[in-house]
């Protein structure tokens, strides 16, 4: 056995194995953190509030610079005057609406939209700080926009009536037939109307005020665009409604204090 020198002990893990282990560890850690956030029931945690404050600030600045007549996108004098005129017109109409309302209201500026494709929401520049609460109703002079579904200190999120999650009790203004509208991308679907219901294309829909007072009665929703011909097995009509408010071009809105 003379001359035999024992080999040095092999490391438990080779560098590649160790690196792979580190990668898997980081992945698992990040997944666990995400799951913790997902399943922790705390609403409006400090982390979320802090992140919101950081993220919404540039969005507010951007919204103000691009939507205001003095914004960076409209430097020319004629354009500036035209924009100023349009803004003046919009605000006058909003003010007129505000004077007619029985509820107290807050004027807000749209500062952003849902960044993913899963929901139809908008972000407003008014939040808990000025008294906005969940389920307050958002309108424009043309009609109903949606309801507040998330409130932060200086901003709030509004679920538009075109969101798949949104359902509003309505009635046809002409025939007083009642139904429910649900969002479908850019349109609305009028549901639960029997095959014999008195309904015509072009009929105006207004809120019925029947979901526990969430939406006040009489707010304009939209007009019936198309009545699909029923199939033999259908129990209800399928009716497509176009919202009266152009939800893709919202700039200023009113938040109604409905509770």
């Amino acid at each position, binding site marked *: 056995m003379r001359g035999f020198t024992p080999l040095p002990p092999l490391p438990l893990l080779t560098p*590649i194995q160790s690196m792979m282990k580190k990668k898997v560890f980081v992945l698992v850690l990040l997944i666990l953190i995400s799951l913790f956030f997902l399943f922790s029931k705390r609403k409006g945690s400090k982390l979320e509030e802090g992140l919101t404050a950081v993220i919404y600030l540039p969005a507010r600045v951007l919204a103000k610079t691009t939507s205001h007549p003095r914004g960076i996108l409209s430097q020319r004098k004629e354009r500036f005057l035209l924009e100023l005129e349009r803004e003046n017109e919009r605000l006058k109409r909003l003010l007129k609406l505000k004077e007619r309302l029985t509820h107290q209201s807050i004027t807000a500026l749209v500062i952003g939209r849902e*960044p993913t494709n899963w929901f139809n929401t908008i972000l407003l520049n008014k939040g808990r700080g000025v008294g906005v609460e969940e389920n307050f109703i958002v309108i424009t002079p043309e009609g109903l926009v949606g309801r507040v579904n998330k409130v932060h200190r200086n901003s709030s999120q509004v679920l538009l009536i075109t969101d798949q999650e949104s359902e509003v009790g309505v009635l046809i203004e002409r025939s007083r037939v009642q139904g429910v509208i649900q969002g479908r991308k850019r349109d609305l679907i009028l549901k639960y109307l029997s095959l014999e219901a008195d309904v015509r294309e072009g009929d105006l829909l207004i809120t019925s005020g029947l979901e526990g007072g969430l939406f006040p009665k009489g707010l304009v929703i939209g007009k019936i665009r198309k009545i699909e011909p029923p199939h033999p097995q259908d129990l209800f009509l399928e009716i497509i409604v176009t919202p009266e408010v152009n939800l893709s071009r919202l700039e200023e809105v009113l938040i109604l204090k409905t509770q």
Partner: protein
Amino acid sequence: MNKKRVAPLILLFFLFLFLLIFQATSLNRLSILGVKPDLLLILVIFFGLYKGPLSGAWCGFLAGILLDTFSPVPLGTNALSKTILGFLAGVVAPLLYFETPLTQGFLLFIGMLLEGMILFILLSSFHLAPPLSYSLRYIILPASLYTALLTPLLFYTFKKLNLVPPREMG
């Protein structure tokens, strides 16, 4: 703290923030049939492919958390889906050639489909997801296609911004 290590992180944070705000504001004017591309996922997969699984996962987590604060989803939803996608992009990168616009677009198309299914499962568990047929027809497939079409242009831009340091070992 090492400035050389911190500076790219700060740049990355602001790049994600810029893309998020762009996606939530001006990008709406470019939406087709109510659908818009996911610029953040393009950046996450870009990092996964060029910098490896670790960077992909971290970028996915950061992008997801930022997105979650803007969205009505529970905090952590997009963080989870984008972490997985970023990591997977890094894992499959050594097996693929992704320097042509076609392969880049195809990779993002598959990535978007996969993320769409992960989000569908997560949102369903909170009763927030539309039915699967609706999700596929109106959200997942059109968004995947739109994102895939924009991918080569964005990959080119990210490369021009020198966002591609050497890949990690392993």
